C-alpha cells in the first residue's frame, strides 16, 4: 500500500513506530498531487515548500517523543480558510491575489496539532454551488469518472481525499457543501453542529448556516479531526461547548423520513438506501418512519435566508480593498447578491426574510419532535448520483434542488455525517446520518458500525 493511501489512524501508527517519516508521507501526497491535479483540478495552491518544512519539523518532534493528534499528517484546506501568508481565493477572481495576514482558528488548531498543510483546494466560488463547476479557477473533476461532477462546493477537498492527495481535508457546509461532495467521492464528510467548530477566519458565505467540517477516508479519522477542530473559540461568539450522551447501537432507534419517499429519489440510489437500512437493522438498530412535515419548505426557506446573508457578507469586496473590482464576481454570486438584496429590502423583508426565519423555526421544531422518538435519522445526501459536467450548470434551479435533503440540517443547526453506501453505475453515493445538536459522537458510532460492516472506503478510484 502506498503511504498516501493510509488513513490518519494508520499513518499515525506508522509514524510513531518509525516505519516511515512524515517527509516520506508528505512526499507521497505531493507526488500524487503532481501526477493527478492537472486532470482533477483539486488544488488551487499547492504549498510544497511549506509542507516539506512542516514535515521535517514534525519528524523532529516525533523523534523527540512528542505525540500530537495530527503530528506529521498531510492535510489540505478548502481555499475558504484564511491561511497566514498563503493566498486564499475563495475560488473567486475577486480574491485572486489576496494573502491573509492571519490564520483561521481551525487552521491554527490543525497546525498546532502537528499537521502538514499540503495546499488549498478548489471550490465553487464563495462556496456557491453544488457541483464544483462554479470555480473561477476551473471545475474540479470526479476521480471516479472525470466526465462527472465531484459535487460542491467543497469539491477540491473531497477529491483530494478520494484520490489520496492528502489524508484529510477541511470543508465548509452551508447547505450540503461537505456532505454532497463526500457522497459523490466515496469519502466520509462531517457537517458538525452549528457552533461546534469555530468559523473565525473562514470566509463567510451565510453566517447563520455555515458549518465547518472535514473530509476523511474513515469515520474514525473524522472523529480524530473533530477532536482537533471542535470546541469553544473566544473569537467566535456563536461557538459552544456541549457534550452528548452515548448509548449502544443495539438500543438505538433510527428514523427514516416518510416524506422523502415521494421526493423523486433515483432508483439505484433508492436500492442502495434500502440496503443501508437493512444493514443497520442487521447491526441491531431499530429503524422506523418519522415525519418532518415542514421539510418540503426547506429549500425555499434556505434560498431566502442564505442569499440574504450572502448579499451582506459579500458587501466588503467593494473594490476598495483586496485589489479586484466588483465586476469580477461571477454570475452565481451576482445572482445571490441580487436575490438577497431584494429579500432584505424594506417592504419585502417581512414577506420573505422574516417569513423564512419563521419557517426555519418550524423546521427546527420538526427535528426536535423527531429526536424525541428516534436517536438519529438517515436520509439520502442527494436525490441522484453524480451528474455529468455541464448538465445543470445553466439551470440554477435544478442545481439548487440537488440540496433538498441537506439544507434542512443547516437550517436546524444539527450535525450530519455523510458515509459511502455503494455505487450507482460506477459512481459513488452516500447517506447522511443526522442527529440532535452536539450528537456527533452518536453519529460516529452509527457511521463506524456501518462502515466496518460494509467497508466501502476500501474502494479506490482508478486514476
Amino acid at each position, binding site marked *: 500500500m502506498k503511504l498516501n493511501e493510509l488513513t490518519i489512524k494508520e499513518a499515525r501508527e506508522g509514524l510513531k513506530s518509525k516505519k516511515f517519516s512524515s517527509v516520506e508521507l508528505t512526499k507521497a501526497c505531493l507526488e500524487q498531487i503532481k501526477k493527478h491535479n492537472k486532470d482533477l483540478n483539486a488544488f488551487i495552491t499547492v504549498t510544497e515548500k511549506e509542507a516539506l518544512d512542516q514535515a521535517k519539523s514534525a519528524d523532529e518532534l516525533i523523534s523527540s517523543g512528542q505525540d500530537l493528534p495530527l503530528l506529521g499528517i498531510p492535510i489540505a484546506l478548502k481555499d475558504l480558510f484564511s491561511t497566514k501568508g498563503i493566498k486564499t481565493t475563495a475560488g473567486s477572481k475577486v480574491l485572486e491575489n489576496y494573502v491573509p495576514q492571519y490564520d483561521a482558528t481551525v487552521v491554527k488548531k490543525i497546525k498546532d496539532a502537528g499537521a502538514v498543510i499540503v495546499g488549498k483546494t478548489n471550490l465553487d466560488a464563495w462556496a456557491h454551488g453544488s457541483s464544483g463547476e462554479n470555480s473561477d479557477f476551473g471545475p474540479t473533476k470526479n476521480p471516479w469518472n472525470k466526465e462527472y461532477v465531484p459535487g460542491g462546493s467543497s469539491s477540491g477537498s473531497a477529491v483530494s481525499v478520494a484520490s489520496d492527495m492528502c489524508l484529510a481535508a477541511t470543508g465548509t457546509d452551508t447547505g450540503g457543501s461537505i456532505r454532497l461532495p463526500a457522497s459523490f467521492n466515496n469519502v466520509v464528510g462531517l457537517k458538525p453542529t452549528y457552533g461546534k467548530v469555530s468559523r473565525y477566519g473562514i470566509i463567510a458565505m451565510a453566517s447563520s448556516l455555515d458549518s465547518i467540517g472535514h473530509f476523511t477516508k474513515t469515520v474514525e479519522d473524522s472523529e480524530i479531526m473533530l477532536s482537533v477542530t471542535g470546541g469553544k473559540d473566544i473569537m467566535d461568539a456563536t461557538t459552544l461547548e456541549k457534550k452528548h450522551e452515548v448509548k449502544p447501537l443495539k438500543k438505538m432507534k433510527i428514523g427514516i423520513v416518510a416524506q422523502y419517499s415521494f421526493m423523486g429519489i433515483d432508483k439505484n440510489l433508492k436500492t442502495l438506501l434500502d440496503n443501508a437500512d437493512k444493514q443497520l437493522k442487521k447491526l441491531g438498530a431499530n429503524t422506523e418512519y418519522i415525519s418532518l412535515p415542514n421539510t418540503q419548505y426547506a429549500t425555499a426557506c434556505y434560498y431566502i435566508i442564505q442569499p440574504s446573508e450572502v448579499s451582506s457578507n459579500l458587501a466588503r469586496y467593494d473594490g476598495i480593498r483586496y485589489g479586484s473590482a466588483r465586476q469580477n464576481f461571477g454570475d452565481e454570486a451576482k445572482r445571490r447578491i441580487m436575490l438577497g438584496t431584494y429579500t*432584505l429590502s424594506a417592504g419585502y423583508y417581512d414577506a420573505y426574510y422574516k417569513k423564512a426565519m419563521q419557517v426555519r423555526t418550524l423546521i427546527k421544531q420538526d427535528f426536535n419532535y423527531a429526536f424525541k422518538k428516534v436517536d438519529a435519522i438517515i436520509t439520502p445526501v442527494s436525490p441522484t448520483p453524480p451528474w455529468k459536467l455541464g448538465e445543470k450548470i445553466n439551470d440554477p434551479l435544478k442545481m439548487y434542488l440537488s440540496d433538498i435533503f441537506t439544507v434542512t440540517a443547516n437550517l436546524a443547526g444539527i450535525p450530519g455525517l455523510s458515509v459511502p453506501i455503494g455505487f450507482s453505475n460506477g459512481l459513488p453515493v452516500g447517506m447522511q446520518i443526522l442527529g440532535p445538536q452536539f450528537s456527533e459522537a452518536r453519529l460516529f458510532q452509527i457511521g463506524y458500525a456501518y462502515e466496518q460492516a460494509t467497508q466501502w472506503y476500501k474502494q479506490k478510484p482508478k486514476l
Partner: protein
Amino acid sequence: MKNDKYIPVIGLEVHVELKTKSKMFCSCKAEYFGEKPNTNTCPVCLGLPGALPVPNQKAIEWCVMIGLSLGCKIPLFSKFDRKNYFYPDLPKGYQISQYDEPFAINGSLKLKIKNDPFDKTQAFGSEAQARRGHPEQSRTDEKLKIDEEKIIRIRRVHMEEDTAKLIHQGQDSLIDFNRSGVPLVEIVTQPDFESAQEVVEYLKKLQQIVRYLGVSDADMEKGNMRLEPNISLRINDKELIGKLPNYKVEVKNINSFRFVEKAIEYEIKRQEEILNNGETPAQETMGWNEKKGQTVSQRIKEEANDYRYFPEPDIPPIRFTQDQISKIKSQIGELPEEKLKRFQAGFGLSAYDAEILTREKPMANFFEETIIVGKKHNVNPKQIANFLINRDIDINLTLPAQLIQIILNATQTDQIDEKELEKIIDKVLKENPKAVSDYKSGKQNAIMFLMGQVMKNFKEKIDAEKVRILIMEGLR
C-alpha cells in the same frame, strides 16, 4: 427662540463614544485620539474576510447604564442587527448596530429652561408645555427669569460600532481604522424640543450624566460626542399639537454645542422663509458650515434610506436577567440631579451654588471631602462653597486640608475689629511723626517700626502683611 406663527419641532440623535479599554467587537485599543493611524487594528476591525465580531461586555453594560440613568426600560431580550450601506469608512459594508430591539427604550430627561418672562408665546398651549411640571423656582430677583421644567422623552438608547475615519488630503482620501469599531452609544429623543436653547440645555445635561457615569469623556473636540438634530416647523395651532410636519431636515455630525445652536437657529429661519412663501422645505440631510454660518445640503432624500437591516447572525441575541440589570443599576452611583438636591437640602446651599458645585463630579467630590476636614475646624459647608466658587480655587493643585487652612487664615483676619485697627493705625502714625517722615524720605525700614507699634497696640492676632498694606495706605 419661539415664533408666533410656527413652532419648531426638533428631535436629536446623539452619538457618545465609550471609553472602554478595548473596541466594541475586538480586543484592539479603543483610544484613538493622537495615535499613529492604523496602529490599533486587527482582522475584526479591518473587516477582513472571515473575521467575526465578539461583543464587548463592558460596553453593553455601560450602554445599559446610560439607559438606566435616563430612566429607560431595559428589555430582557435584545440583539444586534446589521445596517447595510456602502461607504469607504465602513470596511464590512455594514455597520453592526441595533434596529428593533435596542438595549434601552422609553426614558426621559428633565430640563430646567430659563425663559424670558415677557415672552408672549408662553401663553400659548403646546404639547411640550402640557408636559411641563410646576416651576420649581418661580422667580429669582437678580435674573428676572422663570425657570421651568420640561421633559424630553427619550425613544431609545442603542449600541453600535464607530466607523473608520476618513482623512482627505488634496486629491487623496486616506482611511484610519484606529476608530473603526470603537463602541458608540446612540441616544435618540422624541421630537420634543422647541428651541435651540432647549437642545443645548439637554446636551449639557446628557454630557454631565455620561461624565458622572465615567463611561465617556464626552469631549466634543475629540469627537467623543456627535450631534444630529432634525428640525422642522409646524404651524402654531392647537389642532396640530402632537402632529409632525410632513418633512424633516437633518443636520449631521455637529461637534459643538455652539454650532448646534447656530445650526438650529439658522434652519428655523430658513424653513420659516420657505413656509412663508407657501412652499414646503425639502426633506434633506445637511451639514453645518461654520465659515459660512449656514447649513449646507448634503443629500436630498426621496424616501428613507433602505439599510436592509437584519439580525446579526454572528452574535447570539443577548438575554438579561432582572438580577443582572439590578447589578448594573447598583453601579450607577449618584447622578447630578440627585447630588444637586442633596447639596441644597443637606448643606443649605442655594440652587445656584449647588449647580456650580455639582456640574463636574471631581468638584463635587472635592467639596464633600473638604466638608469632612472642615468639620474639625468649625468651617461650615456654606463657607467652603463660597470659597470654591468665588476664589477660583484650583482643585487639582489644592488638597481639601489646604483649602480649610486658606479659609481659616482668611476668616481670622476677616474677624478682627477693623475699626479698632484703623484707630490704632491713625494713632501710631500721629504719635510717630519722625518715623513717618523717615519713611517718606525713603527709609524703608521705618515702616517696620510702625508695624511693630501697631501690632503691639492691637490685642488680637493679626496678619503682618495686612498691617503693612494698611499703614502704607495711611501714609498716602
